[in-house]
């Protein structure tokens, strides 16, 4: 909780100390990856030993990963081979997983936008108006659409956003209160250490 006080109190030293604490906590977090990797290795090795389905892939995973870490550590992050691997695997894959969202949005929309009830109908009406406006062709040929769509996205959307912002913060702070008093998570065998 030390991090929270200085935002209100004008003592520069405390503020700086809070920043340092934040940095420390990030560093601690980064150290923890070792355990995560350790558990991943252990899991994959168990897969391989027990010849569970997909064990070949786990061999591949381990070898490839170790190799890449090795390359990264020996020659540094700006090394050509390392960069090649990053550019040809991480870059396209992250784009795919992100870009695939278009499909998911698409099917979710096509599935959920059915006029089952008044609520769903409202969803459809708003959705279709905005979609028509956003499609560049209709957007430029039916100018009458623009005020409605702008109204929907900016005014109605903003209203929802404001409500969300106001409502969520009380919930979030209350959660903190519950944690600090040891109610939340306490029953999980995670005693009252949060006050640190």
């Amino acid at each position, binding site marked *: 909780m030390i991090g929270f006080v200085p935002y209100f109190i004008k003592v520069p030293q405390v503020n700086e100390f809070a920043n340092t604490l934040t940095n420390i906590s990030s560093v601690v*977090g980064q150290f923890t990856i070792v355990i995560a990797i350790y558990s991943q290795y252990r899991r994959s090795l168990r*897969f391989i030993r027990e010849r569970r389905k997909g064990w070949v892939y786990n061999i591949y995973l381990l070898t490839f990963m170790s190799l890449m870490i090795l390359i990264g550590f020996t020659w540094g992050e700006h090394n050509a081979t390392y960069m090649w691997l990053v550019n040809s695997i991480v870059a396209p894959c992250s784009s795919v*997983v992100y870009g695939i969202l278009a499909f998911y949005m698409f099917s979710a929309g096509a599935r959920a936008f059915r006029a089952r009830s008044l609520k769903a109908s409202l969803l459809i009406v708003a959705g279709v108006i905005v979609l028509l406006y956003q499609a560049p062709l209709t957007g430029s040929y039916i100018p009458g659409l623009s005020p409605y769509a702008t109204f929907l996205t900016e005014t109605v959307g903003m209203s929802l956003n404001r409500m*969300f912002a106001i409502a969520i913060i009380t919930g979030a702070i209350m959660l903190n209160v519950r944690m600090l008093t040891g109610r*939340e998570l306490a029953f999980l065998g*995670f005693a009252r250490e949060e006050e640190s």
Partner: protein
Amino acid sequence: MAELLFEIPGVESGRAFGLILILGIFILGIYYMRRGKLPYIRRVAAIDAISEAVGRSTEMGKPVLCSYGRGGFAYSVIAAMSILGHVAKTCAETDTRLLVPTGGSHTGYLTRELAIDIVKGQYTAAGKPEMFNEDDMPFLSGEQYSFTAGYVGMLVRDRPGAVIMTGGHSSEAMNIAEMSNLVGALTITSGTYVSNMAALACASDYIMLVDEQPAAGAYLSKDPEQLATIRVIDIYKVLSLLLIVVGLLVLNTTGNDFIRRLLAS
């Protein structure tokens, strides 16, 4: 920025009202907790559905997949942890396999350890520590979309009967929700920001809207002390509504900027 209404010495200017608000919420929260009087609580379908979903998977003999997000210790992750705790408890009692994908962000390595502690703790509390299997909580790298790819891979391979995806998920949430719909799992999600919520509302079976998620932990615990804190949240909501209404009325009838100045103080 409106002129300040008052200033508390020693407190950064423009932040005093916020401090009062926070202190107020702490005091009220502790007061209501001590009082422990059980308030009326409206049913929330999405949170009720969690136990239903776990039960359904148990009947079908399928695993339950429950994730808490991929961020650091933001409120949503903490809230999801407590949901995870309840799910783990139910799973331990009913001998249902629980899958928890972890990782996904370079700030989330510590959260992973906490999640493992929680699930392990629940299994131990249910008297079945040997049932806990860390292999079912795989680490799927610290990169957002490779986490997503791995997550989706788990959905395709293990075909869970229920997917409870709460906490700090961002854009990958849609991947997961649609995919779990495709593999026929009951999907319970929660959004952490508005556009995500809108999309998830279309894609999932049940969704925790707005602040149902931070309240979920208290709601699930059925502990009067925690339920009482939900009352405090409501008090603050009403307070903010009153501020808006009074502020608008006063400003537009008399031109008095009082409320905005109060807020900016």
